[in-house]
């Protein structure tokens, strides 16, 4: 999902950077110092998820988990994912440096959207309903991410259209896997530590 340096047009880079700055600013504002460890942990989990490969037929996919991170963090997903992507870029050469803004928006914006779209759903009293919303969140965030990646490519040149389409098709298995995995993770966290998904607060708010 990471885009490398040099591929995108300058205006796309600039818009991505601006959106990331805005998102991170909101995220930092909503996150107090006592929340830091929790956000840091999720940032680390995103980092590690990219090393978890699941087989799909003869090939394999790695997890992204931005849906799960969004569900747990809301706007704080922006700083969390920026930090993880920054570390990946600097120490592992994943993605690039100047595209960091675009990459962050592509992965963190869907996370925040999922937080608002599926947040109610996963706190439903029925585990089945919650799991379904978890799956929607997991798969949905990948759908939105791929669409955003495709958009960033297309806006940078007509010639990228085919690559953008292929990116989308290639990620369909990822969407399915992420859906199931996120649903299971949501089910487990609901049972074991519901406060972690802000489920209690949401129930109270209703």
């Amino acid at each position, binding site marked *: 999902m990471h885009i490398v340096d040099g591929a995108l047009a300058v205006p796309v880079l600039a818009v991505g950077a601006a959106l990331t700055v805005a998102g991170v600013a909101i995220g930092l504002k909503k996150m107090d110092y006592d929340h830091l460890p929790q956000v840091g942990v999720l940032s680390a989990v995103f980092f590690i998820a990219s090393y978890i490969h699941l087989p799909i037929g003869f090939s394999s996919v790695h997890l992204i988990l931005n849906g799960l991170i969004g569900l747990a963090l809301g706007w704080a997903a922006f700083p969390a994912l920026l930090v993880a992507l920054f570390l990946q870029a600097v120490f592992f050469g994943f993605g690039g440096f100047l595209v960091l803004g675009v990459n962050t928006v592509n992965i963190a914006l869907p996370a925040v959207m999922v937080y608002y779209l599926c947040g109610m759903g996963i706190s439903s009293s029925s585990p089945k309903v919650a799991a379904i919303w978890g799956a929607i969140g997991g798969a949905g965030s990948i759908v939105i991410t791929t669409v955003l990646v495709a958009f960033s490519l297309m806006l940078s040149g007509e010639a990228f259209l085919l690559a953008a389409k292929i990116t989308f098709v290639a990620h369909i298995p990822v969407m399915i896997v992420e859906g199931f995995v996120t649903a299971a993770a949501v089910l487990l966290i609901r*049972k*074991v*530590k519901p406060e972690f998904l802000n489920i209690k607060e949401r129930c109270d708010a209703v």
Partner: protein
Amino acid sequence: MSDKPLIEVRGLSYRYPRRGLVLDKVDFHLCQGERVALTGANGAGKTTLLHLLVGLKRAKSGEIIAFGEPRNDEKSFIDVRARAGFLFQDPDDQLFCPTVLEDVAFGPLNLGKSREEALQLAMDTLASLGMAGFEERITHQLSGGEKRMITLAAVLAMEPEVLLLDEPSNALDSNARQHLIDTLQTLPQAMIIISHDADFLAQLATREVTLENAKLNPLATGTGINVISAEHEHA
């Protein structure tokens, strides 16, 4: 009871990148009915040895013969893992399902059992350990002693022929510890038990081996070395 060893190890060596040699040409065997205590200082390499036995780490040199066959690749170790139950040093590492029943049924499911069979087996195993009624409890919220018993159930539900126990009595209070000892004494499986608790081992082990300076040395406890001791009390 055959006298062919269940697990046999010849000239096993292992080194960690920055740590150097942890195991140096170790020989070892485990026979039917034995309960071998594996002792040694912190960091001697006890956990590492058990990991090697089931192929979670791969030896740099040496042979592992388990259940009559040499094992050297991932594929052959999968069969070993199905037949040797491994209890980890920290029960938290081993419990990952939300409820006790799901966790205990995980192993049988991996062995290809159907969902119904696996659940039945899980319930039977829990009952036989005196843990009936825990099925729907949330694993994460159990006490240390309960977690230990559940991980034991999870391992026994796979109906293993051998048990590998890594410091099972750690952080247990005296009641939980005694319950564990009593349970282990009734089990028919051959075992390797890592522990720093001399009294715990005295109540269970039929012989003792010690890891020191990367070498494995036999140590006599009770009447015999390398033979099934006479006090061996299982039914």
